[in-house]
């Protein structure tokens, strides 16, 4: 499964949104209706799924689906 699909799957699971809503440009707060705790839990979900730790400063910049994908790609994950 591609990184994009895994990220999308986590977002659908945590936020209960429709697959077509999860575009790369989608903002977590305004487009996907995630409040601040939802966003924290999303970060937690990415950390668990990809086996890494995202610090608070980095997490605050990950405001769109695309930014998360770019961030994870840059981490050059093995899995």
């Amino acid at each position, binding site marked *: 499964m591609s990184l994009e699909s895994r990220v999308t799957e986590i977002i659908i699971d945590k936020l209960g949104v429709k697959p077509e809503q999860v575009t790369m440009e989608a903002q977590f707060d305004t487009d996907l209706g995630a409040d601040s*705790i939802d966003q*924290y*839990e999303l970060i*937690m979900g990415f950390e668990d799924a990809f086996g890494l730790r995202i610090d608070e400063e980095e997490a605050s910049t990950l405001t769109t689906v695309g930014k998360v994908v770019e961030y994870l790609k840059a981490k050059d994950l093995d899995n």
Partner: protein
Amino acid sequence: MNRVAVVTGAARGIGYSISKKLVRSGWKVAGCDILEDDLKTAAGELGEDFHPWTVNITDEEAVKRTASDIEEKLGPVFGLVNNAGITRDGLIMRMQKEDWDSVLAVNLTGAFLMCRAFSRSMLRQKEGSIVNISSVVALLGAVGQINYASTKAGLLGLTRALAREYGTRNIRVNAIAPGFIETEMTRELPEKVREDYASRVPMKRMGQPGNVADAVGFLLDDVSSYITGVVIPVDGGLTT
């Protein structure tokens, strides 16, 4: 499987009593305290479901380490009881800044650090119950205790704010405001002061640590599953 609860200030007084009550009700208790010897004694008395952890809850890194240590050894934590507290009484004009700082560090910052350290696993579990041990002095004030009263009032703010943050996550946050309870802390007071206190209580007597422990047991248990953000006075009617 038995649920896990963390109790701070577990070695003596109200914290010891809370730990005892929880162990007897089938909880696994991680008892945290800075008083290593007293903690060992408590562990000897409370049996194998009481797991002692020596920790300074004002030390951010130590709290993080302790939290992951507890979760690794005992499993996910459901209950957190922020009970640890100290006093450094004195009239304001004589109160040293260290007296203010140290009481804030233990009573209020310690509770914040503990809540934060376990927030991740509680969010992951989608359940949890936090009980903060405040005091009637948060509501009434007391001469010579501006530091202590401030922290106990601060815990009420923490309780209500965190109850809102966690409301949708099935993690409840409540406070208990004990009145005059017979503990090591109140035994240090002059006899005359103690009598004066007791006379002002509608029930005309001081409470026992077990009275507070019973209220904690209630708030940690699922019987209180729709109660969050409240302050329960356990004070013989003092604040009524």
